[in-house]
């Protein structure tokens, strides 16, 4: 099978039935997509297949033959982060980070199809991705900011949209 992964042509042996996730991680050493469930239930393995977000644990590698596959490694390197990656850093949208690559690629596809900063639309687009750490609020804020085309200061994080500070107590 011939795949293109993050711009590089790859030739793969093995069964066309092998999930794309396992081909990426175990044969090609592309470990950005995570094996969170191998059931299609969590979204940690989502990659872009010809620009569309797909659960790579459900997709037989044979179905990706000839397709352009983009993983998190392919959307931006540390010195050259994509806007959505910058947004995730600036909005503190990743905690343990295990769901992050799948979440980013779903968001990247949402932005590519012209998604707005409307929270409900973002929630619908990313609905299948489970994050157990963040409670989603800051992920939604990050995607909305990227959708607006904001620029991001990576030396600090955004003031929480859902929080106010108060001084109280028994000083």
């Amino acid at each position, binding site marked *: 099978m011939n795949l293109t992964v993050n711009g590089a042509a790859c030739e793969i042996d093995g069964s066309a039935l092998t999930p794309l996730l396992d081909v990426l991680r175990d044969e090609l050493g592309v470990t950005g997509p995570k094996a969170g*469930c191998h*059931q299609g*239930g*969590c979204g940690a393995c989502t990659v872009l297949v010809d620009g569309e977000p797909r659960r790579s644990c459900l997709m037989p590698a044979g179905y990706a033959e000839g397709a352009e596959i983009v993983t998190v490694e392919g959307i931006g390197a540390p010195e050259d982060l994509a806007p959505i990656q910058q947004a995730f850093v600036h909005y*503190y949208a990743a*905690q*343990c*980070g295990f769901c992050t690559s799948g979440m980013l690629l779903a968001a990247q596809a949402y932005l590519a199809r012209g998604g707005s900063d409307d929270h409900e639309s973002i*929630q*619908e687009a*990313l*609905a*299948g*991705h*489970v*994050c*157990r*750490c*963040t*409670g*989603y*609020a*800051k*992920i*939604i804020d990050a995607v909305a900011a990227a959708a607006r085309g904001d620029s991001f200061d990576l030396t600090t*994080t*955004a*003031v*929480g949209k*859902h*929080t*106010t*500070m*108060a*001084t*109280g*107590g*028994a*000083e």
Partner: protein
Amino acid sequence: MAKHTGRGIAAIEYPTGMNQNGDPSQCWIKVKPDGRIDVFAGTADIGNGSKTIQSQIVAETIGVPYDWITYDNSNTDSSPVCTGTFASRATFVAGKAAEKAAQEVKRKLLDIAGKELEIDPSDLEIVDGEVVAKGAPQTKLSVGDVAAAATWGHGELITGTGAQLKPYAAIVDPETGEVDLPPHSAISYAACSAEVEVDDETGEVRVTRLQQCYDVGRALNPSQVEGQIEGGAMMGLGLGVLENCYPYYPSVEHRGGAFGSYLAPGMEDMPQIDTIMIENPSADGPYGAKGIGEMANNPQPPAIAAAVYDAVGVWVTELPITPERVLRALEAKAEPRREGKKVVFDEELSVNAVSSGGIRFEVPA
């Protein structure tokens, strides 16, 4: 068919650090010849952000920029003991160890700087990576130069170690539970209001809003505290209305083995979340912090239960408040039994109804 709305309130408290204490965390720091700081600790970062927080504490305590810090928690060969990342202790206990280690490093830097500048170390301070004479800011030496002097001139390795351990608070009387020492390091507090919408025909409960107030002691990194609180809110929502390993508890039948059958909250379950952070500093935590990571999922379930009562007039006291439990409660319309001054709810759930004499819960009439 109708949808009903309701609101409920809860207030909670939660201890920081292991109950009864006795849980050490340690940290050690070394300074490179250019003044950059290497921090070694055994605290796992499980997403809670302890790599960041402990680096912030060290930078602040020594007086150097944050990006001078490297933080290594990667292995047990180089890192000292940390009991672990649980019990809301990674900032409070392990962060305190980092603060203590950084204080020692600062003291040693000032000692060397004092020799170089021929000024008493107590008249020096470190500000943004420079050792500065108090009251004479033109007299200064960069921390990098101090570290170089220590390495090449004084033949010294600048290190600092810190250990935080509150002694184990033994139970002195197991009959009463009395302790001789405080069993907690600090206590955090929170209050919560939940708003729900309940469909009285399908029993579906949608949490529409959570307003919460947390006493965080001091927010060392407000974005990270928000992350804990918002993440906890969704986990609390899961506890309240979605999640259950055993859908027919105590039966073990129909246990789910997939995200399709175990309902961890998804993005579309999210209500409006508003949080107020109060800073009521703890005397013992680093820079006044309290640990709030765990308690963040505690106030929502009871607030949601009360909101469901407010909406449709039934108390569901088994979690999660599933559509089925709401419908069963609506159908039963159970009234508490009144006996003398006793008002007895939920009798069918009690050990008194289920146990055949093995255990009872006796309350005088």
